[in-house]
């Protein structure tokens, strides 16, 4: 009945300040939720992206006995003649880059300071090494043939007060159990914007790492990047059965995947808690309206208006507040996401080792987030308004007319 819509709309305007405050409370709740969802999306996407680009790739080919938690240089834990295998993989259409990497563990010493480091021996000219090259903030990149140059992460360089051109000494464990020492020049200082990675990772050419670690023609793994991560399973299937183990990015990053799934579930609970709090403001507003308009409800019932229509009238009023509050909240939420999408949230080092979380997180929201939060907001607010509407609908006409409730 149109008159109910009209009456409900006009009733909203009877106490403008109260209606506006109620809608604003809901708007703020929706805005904050949208910002938090944007932050979570940004964190998940960028962490996934960084972990894949820097640590796991989309897939890796490893020796069956390879243990990523130990930097083993035993022959059986390594891949022999990795270039040939990498070239075969690189020839597959979905593959962007396939490149061998050798990981060494060592100690960096400069003057009287030392630091435990992980050394990435890799091909600096491979597209897979792009994050280090593009992240160089001082000096230049190393070349595949360099024998005494390394790239160093900015936080490590800052801690050790090193600059481009300075000389450091690296001691690494070799495949025969010895320790090899050599001086290196800091050719470049890079940042991937993941402090946890940058503060402990030294980059050197693969050939030099193989020579220093006495790994000869071996690599820890073949690091593979794809043009589209959705092709991961198909590529794994096509290179499986070569005597090596082939692992996809989701398998290698189980902790990250579990963490993201849990975060998603926690957020649903968070939605409900935040929106229930804001919806309680609307419940309160509507209850006040019901008690203020007791006589009016009595007049409407005396005219023969049935309980369900009175219920509908108050539900419609709550509905207008819910729609207005949600709409404004969505607009504000989009705006703050856009703002922080430029400025970002800078947190620094999270101290996580399995997950490479960027120092600065830029929120991202999508249409489905907006639809999801809108639905939660409207449903929870409408549920919260049932009680006051029910109070109005259940009023006895005589008591209502006397305003004696």
């Amino acid at each position, binding site marked *: *009945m149109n*008159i109910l819509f*009209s*009456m409900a709309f*006009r*009733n909203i*305007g*009877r106490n403008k300040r109260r209606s506006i405050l109620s809608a604003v409370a809901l708007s703020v709740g929706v805005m904050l939720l949208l910002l938090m969802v944007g932050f979570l999306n940004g964190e998940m996407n960028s962490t996934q992206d960084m972990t894949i680009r820097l640590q796991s790739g989309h897939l890796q080919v490893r020796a069956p006995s390879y243990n990523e938690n130990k930097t083993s240089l035993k022959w059986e834990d390594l891949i022999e003649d990795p270039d040939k295998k990498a070239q075969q993989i690189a020839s597959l259409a979905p593959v962007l880059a396939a490149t061998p990497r050798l990981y060494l563990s060592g100690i960096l010493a400069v003057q009287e300071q030392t630091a435990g480091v992980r050394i990435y021996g890799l091909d600096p000219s491979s597209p897979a090494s792009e994050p280090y090259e593009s992240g160089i903030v001082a000096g230049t990149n190393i070349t595949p043939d360099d024998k005494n140059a390394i790239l160093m992460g900015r936080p490590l360089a800052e801690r050790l007060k090193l600059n481009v051109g300075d000389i450091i000494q690296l001691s690494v464990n070799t495949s025969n159990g010895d320790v090899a020492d050599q001086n290196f020049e800091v050719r470049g200082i890079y940042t991937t914007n993941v402090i946890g990675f940058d503060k402990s990772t030294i980059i050197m050419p693969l050939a030099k790492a193989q020579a220093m670690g006495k790994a000869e023609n071996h690599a820890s793994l073949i690091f593979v990047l794809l043009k589209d991560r959705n092709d991961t399973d198909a590529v794994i299937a096509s290179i499986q059965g070569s005597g090596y183990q082939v692992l996809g990015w989701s398998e290698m990053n189980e902790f990250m995947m579990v963490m993201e799934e849990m975060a998603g579930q926690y957020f649903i609970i968070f939605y409900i808690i935040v929106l229930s709090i804001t919806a309680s403001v609307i419940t309160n507003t509507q209850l006040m309206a019901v008690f203020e308009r007791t*006589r*009016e409800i009595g*007049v*409407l*019932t*005396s*005219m*023969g*208006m*049935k*309980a369900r*229509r009175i219920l509908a009238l108050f539900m419609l009023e709550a509905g207008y507040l819910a729609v207005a509050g949600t709409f404004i909240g969505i607009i504000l939420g989009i705006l703050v996401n856009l703002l922080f999408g430029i400025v970002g949230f800078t947190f620094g080092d999270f101290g996580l080792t399995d997950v490479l979380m960027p120092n600065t997180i830029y929120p991202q929201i999508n249409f489905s987030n907006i639809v999801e939060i809108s639905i939660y907001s409207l449903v929870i607010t409408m549920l919260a308004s049932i009680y006051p509407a029910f109070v109005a609908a259940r009023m*006895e*006409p*005589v008591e209502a*007319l006397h305003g004696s409730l």
Partner: protein
Amino acid sequence: MTVAKIIDVTRSFLTGKIETQALRGINLEIQQGEFTALVGPSGSGKTTLLQLIGCLDQPTSGSVIINGTDVSKLSRSQRADIRRGTIGYVFQFFALIPTLNAYENIEMPLLLTGVNASERHERVITLLESVGLSHREKNRPDQMSGGEQQRVAIARALATKPSMILADEPTANLDSKNGEAIMELMTRLNQETGVTFVFATHDQRVIKFSKRIVTLQDGLIVSDQP
């Protein structure tokens, strides 16, 4: 024709643990077209009786028969159906919906009874004319005087062409000039439309216009004078 018949009606209220008997055995018949005043001091039960006749309340015992239907045992919803279209109300507080203008207030009961748009419009315009408020069609209650608001309330009560209009102290909040005008209006409408008017009042102006005066005291009818 009898529009309302009250048979041995009692009505008591519980206030905490104390039971108050508002009506203690009432018998009354109201005929079509009557212009009746229920009078008596405060607490005599006149408003309670009016509410029972108007299906707003139910008796503790006895029967209330409206247009041949015993309404005393009906559900809330069924009583709402009876009220809609059969009974019009005019209250002491002018009781217009503050967010609706005069036209919309009069239209409201017609919307509730499902009258079609063109007939609604015709009836509302006619009623506005008959209460002399055509020029106030677009005004909301807060833009009208008390007398004007009460005239809109009377028009609204008449909208569904009810068989009976019940008015609870309709002049109590009006000055003598407006009170007189309202009574003259209701007398004219009673004569023109034949609709039954029942008032609960202790206002002498109302009593003066009434053709039948039923006096209550302590929940009993003590006199019934034509």
